[in-house]
């Protein structure tokens, strides 16, 4: 049993190396820190959030965000600081504006168009004039 626990804890160790230890005043501050990191993208490995990334630059940004949090900056102020330096790409939730309309509304528009096409198609099929065609489809 001792061996099991030893191996189990050893297996967890890499998770500890990934994130450098940081001090927090209380639990709620740590939760806020982790939540903010998940909303921010690592610039080097772009499909990871700052919370997950082990990239060199991500570690530095985590420390900087932690430092700014300690000095009383709000989440929005910290985001603005990062956007000014790395661009809006750093945000996983980019703001709604003209250049991001396609990103925000594109999937909805495609769904709407597809739904409309489906409705039109089904209505046509329901008409008696197409009964002959429908019987050949019936398989």
């Amino acid at each position: 049993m001792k061996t099991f626990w030893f191996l189990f804890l050893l297996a967890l160790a890499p998770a500890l190396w990934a994130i450098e230890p940081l001090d927090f005043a209380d639990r709620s501050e740590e939760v806020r820190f982790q939540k903010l990191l998940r909303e921010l993208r690592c610039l080097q490995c772009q499909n990871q959030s700052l919370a997950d990334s082990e990239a060199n630059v991500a570690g530095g940004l985590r420390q900087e965000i932690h430092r700014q949090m300690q000095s009383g900056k709000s989440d929005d102020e910290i985001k603005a600081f990062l956007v000014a330096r790395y661009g809006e790409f750093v945000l996983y939730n980019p703001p709604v504006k003209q250049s991001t309309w396609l990103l925000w509304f594109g999937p909805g528009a495609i769904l709407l168009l597809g739904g409309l096409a489906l409705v039109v198609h089904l209505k046509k099929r329901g008409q008696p004039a197409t009964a002959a065609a429908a019987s050949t489809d019936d398989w």
Partner: protein
Amino acid sequence: MLRALIPLAVFALIGLVLWSGIGKDPSILPSTLIGSPAPEFSAPDLRDPSRTHSKASLGGAPYLLNVFASWCPTCRVEHPILERYVRERGLRLVGLNWKDDAEAGLAWLKQFGDPYSDILYDPSGRIGIDFGVTAAPESFVIGADGTVLYKHIGALTVEDMETRVMPLLQGATP
């Protein structure tokens, strides 16, 4: 019939969307800095820590700010090219030794050559954050008045030097 054109139209639309993405490298991000003043900084020199560099002390003439580190393998690729441009074309090259250890950085320069006129030492990476550096190597063309004219991500090639960096540096000379 008109109905037969619908799949064609859908195909054309999808093709257009996919076509517009071809040839674009999604890992290259536009810099928010280009055209705006470079961030203020203050850092000791890597080779002589008693000297301090700032945006003001380096200003007056355009230069290429090159982010490098001893742990960065790609930096070795561009290093001989930068060295050649300093030697043959009088390039003003300022280094930013980023997230590095002074001893390792100096040993690296001893081994691969040291073409830099001045080197900012930034072990914490704080100056790198202000410049929006995501990985080494990265290079910035800074105008005489301290404006960021160009940002290059990754190793600089002879082609990059000829088509972008040198024309900007020469054009930026008052």
